[in-house]
């Protein structure tokens, strides 16, 4: 990317690696916890199972071996006395020994003691009476109270000790059975089971974790790619890959703040390609897109680090060029312009593209990006209207842009409220002073500001496109007024100024035709004045429209001829009835031989083309006389009449005396 910044990188999402690491760590916790919980429970269950097994075994021993012996014999049931007091009969003792000895010998029972509640040993596997659990032991106490207790003792091998209450078949508890059973085998088996389960659980969880991890990795990668795409798309133009309007605003604003902080100058430049629409229309959008790509590449080739190039939309580009003075900026843009205008081949058609550059410099033209852009825009439009293609904003004359917005808004209302009025300035035949045509000039009767001169609002209207309805309004009103003076017996034609913008609106000739029909005006009594810059734009289209209008019979006049930039070839293609010589030349004819030469040439040129030559800005009798001598056809100016409402136009213009006449008068 062209745009590289040292500081203030645009915010980036966490890298996919970091996100994945977070994921992995976060999912490891529940997986490990689950594993630990399962294993802990399993271990606990296994131990519990072992104890339950020991307990069950002891109970079976108590019921099958001990209780029958105790119940045997014909002895009276106990009277509140337990085994401690009563002991066993000889027969019971023998029977008990017979019932247990094999199990003891085989090791199925390790130790066995029959004890009274006082702890006295009534019977033991080896005949001893002094050993055994102390009476104070909680397990002994619990068994004496009817609750069996089990304990795993880990010595050389593991042994399980069961303290079991001894019940007679009446349900009476008579003592405690203390029995030791081998537990090693059970423990080993349980251990093996636990180990086996541990392996399975750990393996399963590991696989699960792996799958989760892969999923997480895949997901985070997709997500971060998607996010990066989204971010890029949100800030970049898809066609050229350049930053878009949003990105330009954000990044240029940041860069501007930095530059201002460092007190470095720079420029904001708006660029508009000329005749891009033409390429799009004639060669197709594909060629237009290709052109934009080529243009972007050519821009890039000249820009340096820290410069920002953005495509604002359509054929509009913006540049932020920090660290350059005005002249340096202009030099750079000239380079770019030259590079841009190099010939390129699109769909086999060789063409070269030109662009208008509007430059606003900071800090002198503003310290806010919005202001700078507006000023660059103003400068660019000035360039489009004039001849220069690289224009630095100059405060004079066109610093009204902000004011323009207000004017535009008010003008819109003015049109609706009918605050506009038409004044008319006569054009006379130089030879006899007869008024031939009234030029309609619009005035604004502003409710607060009074009569506003056209210079105060027409540029704003032109700039905003409001000129189109305005012209239409003028045209309609002028034709209506003409009906008025016709009724008053005057046969003056009317001329109306038409903006280049009007010519671009489809159906303009049809509108003219319909207005003529509405008012019943013969077409030859209408003249449309077109500035020569209107012709300089999209010449072919403009020429076509003008030809259409001329075909109606409407007269075409070229306004301000000589002040702008016109290729003479335009005059060859357009049917022109009148050429109006710009006041700049006319006012100088007396003093400046060069102006005289030009005016004479234009008059000749007009006549050569079969057109009338009309001089504008005729303010003195001297000039008038000179023009008569030079062969000019018509004249317009303060000398003849200022713009006034049509009823005030004087029908006759008294011819100034010729030079000889004035001499005579002087004598």
């Amino acid at each position, binding site marked *: 990317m062209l745009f590289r910044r040292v500081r203030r990188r645009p915010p980036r999402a966490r890298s996919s690696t970091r996100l994945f690491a977070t994921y992995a760590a976060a999912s490891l916790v529940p997986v490990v916890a689950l594993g630990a919980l399962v294993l802990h429970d399993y271990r606990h269950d296994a131990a519990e199972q072992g104890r339950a097994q020991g307990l069950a075994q002891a109970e079976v021993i108590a019921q099958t071996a001990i209780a029958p012996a105790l*119940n045997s014999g*014909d*002895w*009276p*049931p*106990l*009277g*509140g006395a337990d085994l401690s007091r009563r002991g066993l009969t000889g027969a019971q003792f023998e029977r008990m020994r017979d019932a247990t000895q094999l199990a003891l010998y085989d090791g199925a029972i390790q130790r066995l003691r029959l004890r009274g509640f006082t702890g006295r040993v009534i019977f033991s596997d080896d005949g001893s009476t002094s050993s055994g659990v102390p009476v104070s032991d909680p397990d002994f106490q619990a068994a004496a*109270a*009817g*609750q069996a207790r089990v304990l795993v003792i880990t010595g050389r091998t593991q042994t399980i000790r069961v303290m079991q*209450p001894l*019940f*007679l*078949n*009446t*349900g*009476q*508890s*008579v003592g405690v059975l203390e029995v030791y059973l081998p537990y090693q085998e059970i423990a080993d088996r349980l251990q093996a089971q636990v180990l086996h389960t541990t392996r399975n659980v750990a393996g399963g969880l590991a696989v699960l974790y792996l799958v989760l991890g892969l999923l997480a990795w895949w997901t985070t990668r997709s997500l971060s790619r998607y996010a990066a795409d989204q971010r890029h798309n949100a800030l970049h133009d898809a066609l050229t890959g350049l930053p878009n309007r949003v990105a330009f605003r954000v990044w240029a604003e940041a860069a501007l703040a930095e530059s201002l902080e460092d007190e470095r100058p720079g420029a904001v430049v708006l660029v508009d390609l000329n005749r891009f629409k033409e390429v799009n229309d004639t060669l197709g959008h594909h060629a237009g897109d290709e052109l934009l790509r080529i243009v972007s590449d050519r821009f890039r080739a000249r820009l340096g680090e820290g410069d920002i190039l953005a495509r604002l939309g359509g054929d509009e580009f913006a540049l932020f060029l920090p660290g350059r003075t005005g002249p340096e900026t202009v030099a750079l843009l000239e380079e770019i312009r030259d590079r841009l205008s190099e010939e390129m081949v699109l769909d086999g058609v060789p063409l070269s593209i030109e662009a208008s550059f509007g430059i606003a410099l900071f800090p002198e033209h503003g310290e806010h990006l919005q202001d700078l852009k507006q000023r660059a825009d103003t400068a660019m439009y000035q360039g489009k209207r004039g001849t220069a293609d690289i224009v630095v904003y100059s405060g004079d004359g066109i610093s009204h842009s902000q004011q323009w917005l207000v004017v535009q808004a008010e003008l819109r209302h003015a049109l609706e409220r009918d605050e506009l009025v038409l004044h008319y300035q006569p054009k006379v035949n130089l030879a006899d002073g007869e008024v031939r045509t009234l030029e309609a000039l619009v005035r604004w009767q502003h409710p607060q500001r009074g009569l506003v001169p056209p210079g105060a609002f027409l540029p704003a209207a032109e700039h905003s496109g409001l000129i189109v309805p305005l012209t239409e309004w003028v045209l309609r009103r002028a034709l209506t007024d003409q009906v008025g003076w016709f009724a008053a017996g005057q046969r003056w034609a009317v001329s109306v100024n038409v903006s280049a913008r009007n010519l671009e609106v489809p159906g303009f000739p049809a509108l003219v035709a319909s207005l003529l029909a509405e008012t019943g005006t013969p077409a030859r009594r209408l003249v449309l004045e077109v500035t020569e810059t209107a012709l300089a734009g999209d010449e072919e289209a403009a020429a076509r429209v003008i030809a259409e209008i001329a075909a109606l019979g409407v007269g075409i006049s070229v306004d301000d001829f000589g002040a702008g930039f016109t290729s003479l070839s335009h005059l060859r293609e357009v049917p022109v009835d009148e050429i109006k010589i710009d006041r700049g030349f006319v006012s100088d004819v007396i003093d400046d031989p060069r102006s005289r030469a030009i005016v004479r040439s234009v008059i000749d040129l007009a006549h050569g083309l079969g057109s009338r030559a009309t001089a504008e800005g005729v303010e003195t009798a001297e000039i008038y006389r000179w023009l008569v001598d030079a062969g000019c056809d018509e004249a317009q100016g303060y000398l003849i009449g200022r713009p006034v409402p049509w009823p005030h136009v004087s029908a006759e213009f008294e011819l100034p005396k010729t030079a000889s006449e004035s001499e005579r008068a002087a004598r």
Partner: protein
Amino acid sequence: MTLLRRTIAATGVALLLAAGGCTRAESTVQAGALDVTGTVMMDQELHDRLPEVIRAKGFIRFVTDASYAPMEYFAADGRTIIGFEPDLAAALGEVLGIKVEMVVGAFSTALDEVSAGAYDGVFSSMTDTKERQQKADFVDYFSTGTSILVQRGNVKGIAELDDLCGHSVATEKGTYQEQMLQRVRKECGAEGMRIHSRGTNADALVELRTGRVSAVLQDYPPASFLATDERTSAFFQLASDHQYETGLFGIAVAKDNTALRDCLHAALGRLIASGTYADLLARWELSASAVTEATVNAG
């Protein structure tokens, strides 16, 4: 009704307290009734009438064979005797104002031991018979008959006492049922009957459970308990609902100990009158076997 009695009792106590003439004897004129907390109240007069010896030693000791649920049997701990009789004994002790102990002993020798003075009485579901009245006086507290208990399914098809002929039958040694069996055997003729008299009721039931005998003869309450209790109902059932030779259970007291007999008689009367007796029976689901009044040697 109980509430009314309690109210009267409480009011009486309150009035006496208010009069300032409170003595223990006077405050317990309602002996055998319940106090406000539901405790049986002591009767000082009856206490005073207890034999000197008993008052001196401070307790009455009854012998019982605790293998006769729900009348008297061992709790799960194998040490505590529970059942209707221990509860009734305790209630009697409350009225008499003396501790009552239940001690485990052999049923068959119990009467002799009482005569010998080892115990103050037998309180062990003992049927009051004329024969036994030779050895002891009975304070009768319970009315029931005898039932035939057989294995669940009754494959031997025993329905009547006569059906027992030709079978082995078990019972507890020295019981009324042992005598009944001996009488039935006489009618059996050539078929005969093998009677297994065992030291405890539990021994007899073990023989029925393991198929060594076809039936066990015992009093209706424990037989019914066995046939309905969830731990034993899978193995035992009643041959029929009929109760044979209905009789009275009595607390056997030595014949020369009339003072104790009369005290127990009076105390029992108080418990019956106060409703405590009925309440205790209801707790053990034995209400059908209630007696309406306390009697002596009525069997």
